[in-house]
């Protein structure tokens, strides 16, 4: 367990050694900020006609949509670069279990994104001061749980994919492709099916995220994201084990 923390800590600090962390933070916070301005203006407009203000959970939709592009960039080099630089040999001959390595990497990236999530809290807090009646705190909490769950799953899958490649760009595009399929494409067949479409709808990341983000979710939605995370980490650990045998 201690090893997981040691690896996570290094990865977390390592993000700030390169430009990637700052670019990701800039893109996320700027884009969410722009929608924050829109949200504020829209609610003001509604207030003139006595309408209720919009809920800020909409901002997290923006955050998560951007994460579809950014999460692969955050995870792409986590294990692929270790393989390319040969440092994997160092880690695999240190007394560290394969899964500790993979989970540590995932945890490091998750902590990095969680710091950005924490930063993004500033928007609903400011927004709350502008609107009357105040925002729905329970809905906001649910929305942030949705963000943490989906980010955990995306990063888990990203780490798993990173473990399979020695080239970080290959890892990026494979992860990006997978996230797009999971978000946009996978529930497509359900539209053409008279029955049995539930399976495809269940596999859609977007459906589960929207459910939790809107505060009406079941245990199944949470289990879905936790399973995806576990799947990603399992694939990553297996990929590392396969590397040993080659």
């Amino acid at each position: 367990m201690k090893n997981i923390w040691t690896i996570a800590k290094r990865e977390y600090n390592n993000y700030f050694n390169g430009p990637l962390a700052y670019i990701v933070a800039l893109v996320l916070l700027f884009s969410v900020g722009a929608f924050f301005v829109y949200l504020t203006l829209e609610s003001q407009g509604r207030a003139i006609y006595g309408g209720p203000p919009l809920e800020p959970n909409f901002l997290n939709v923006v955050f998560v949509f951007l994460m579809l592009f950014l999460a692969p960039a955050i995870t792409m080099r986590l294990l692929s670069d270790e393989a390319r630089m040969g440092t994997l040999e160092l880690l695999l001959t240190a007394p560290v279990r394969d899964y500790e390595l993979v989970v540590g990497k995932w945890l490091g990236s998750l902590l990095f994104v969680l710091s950005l999530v924490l930063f993004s809290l500033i928007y609903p807090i400011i927004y709350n001061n502008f609107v009357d009646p105040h925002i729905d705190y329970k809905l906001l909490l649910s929305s942030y749980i949705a963000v943490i769950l989906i980010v955990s799953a995306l990063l888990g899958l990203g780490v798993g994919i990173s473990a399979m490649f020695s080239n970080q760009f290959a890892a990026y595009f494979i992860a990006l492709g997978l996230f797009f399929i999971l978000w946009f494409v996978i529930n497509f067949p359900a539209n053409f099916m008279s029955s049995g479409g539930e399976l495809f709808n269940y596999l859609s990341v977007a459906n589960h995220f929207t459910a939790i983000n809107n505060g009406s979710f079941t245990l199944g939605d949470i289990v879905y994201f936790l399973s995806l995370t576990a799947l990603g980490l399992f694939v990553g650990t297996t990929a590392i084990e396969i590397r040993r045998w080659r």
Partner: protein
Amino acid sequence: MIKVRGLTKDYGARRAIHNLSFDAQQGEIVGFLGPNGAGKTTTMRILTGYMPPTDGEVIVAGYDVVEESLEVRKRVGYLPETVPLYTEMAVFDYLKYMGDLRQLPNVEDRVDEVLEMVGLSDRAEGYIANLSKGMRQRVGLAQALLHKPEVLILDEPTIGLDPGQVVEVRNLIREIGKERTVLLSTHLLHEAQNICDRVLIINKGKILAEDTTANLQSRLAGAERVALRIRGEADKDLIKTIQKVKGVEEAEIKGDGLVEFEFAPGKDARPEVAKQVVQAGYDLLEMRPLGMSLEEIFLELTSAEGKKK
């Protein structure tokens, strides 16, 4: 200590290591000698728990590398061939990270200690990216020494170092080898001769010879050969003079006042040869033994292997 029995490793259809068996005791420095692609690195990777063997039994520091990989890894220090370093980290931070992964107590003090050992204390705060190849090599060595491993496995430890550093690193290895088991690979024969107690000569995944460096030399050099130099040109009379001495088996002119002669092992003819040469009126300038170098032994063994096929 290291115990290897019947070690075999296949990469797909290619057999990289063929039924390898050897031992290394505590307090012994064993050299692994062979050309590129001989299977040195593969063997070392198996010993360090990086990859599993296809077949055979490997015991390192009392633990089986397959069954108790983590226990082995705790007790082995490993310097891979291409020193793997996080170039974006400072030297001290890198070593501290590796120490933390090994869950060492008082990591920071220990890092200072090993930096002192490899002579890098003044570069502790510097980034690895800015270090020369020799310095990186020493950072890698520091990493391998961090946890005071029982067994030290070094893949080409002196490659890329300048002559001064080579001497330092060899002294360091010798020092460590007094108490621990050291297995090092090299393709520099004089290096093996210089620091190793015992040498394993390996080619195409098989051990060709295994002995102490001294024994290997005498075993392969059937007779003792000596070079002798006089002032001026050597002539046939000189050869006759030398050949008359009891025990001398062969003498020939090598030109430029140089003569080489051989005598049977155990019958040292040198004092008598010197006496006779001087009495015959020649100015004797030099006389030195021409022990067969590891280079020659190595070439002989590897080419003999080639001829068999």
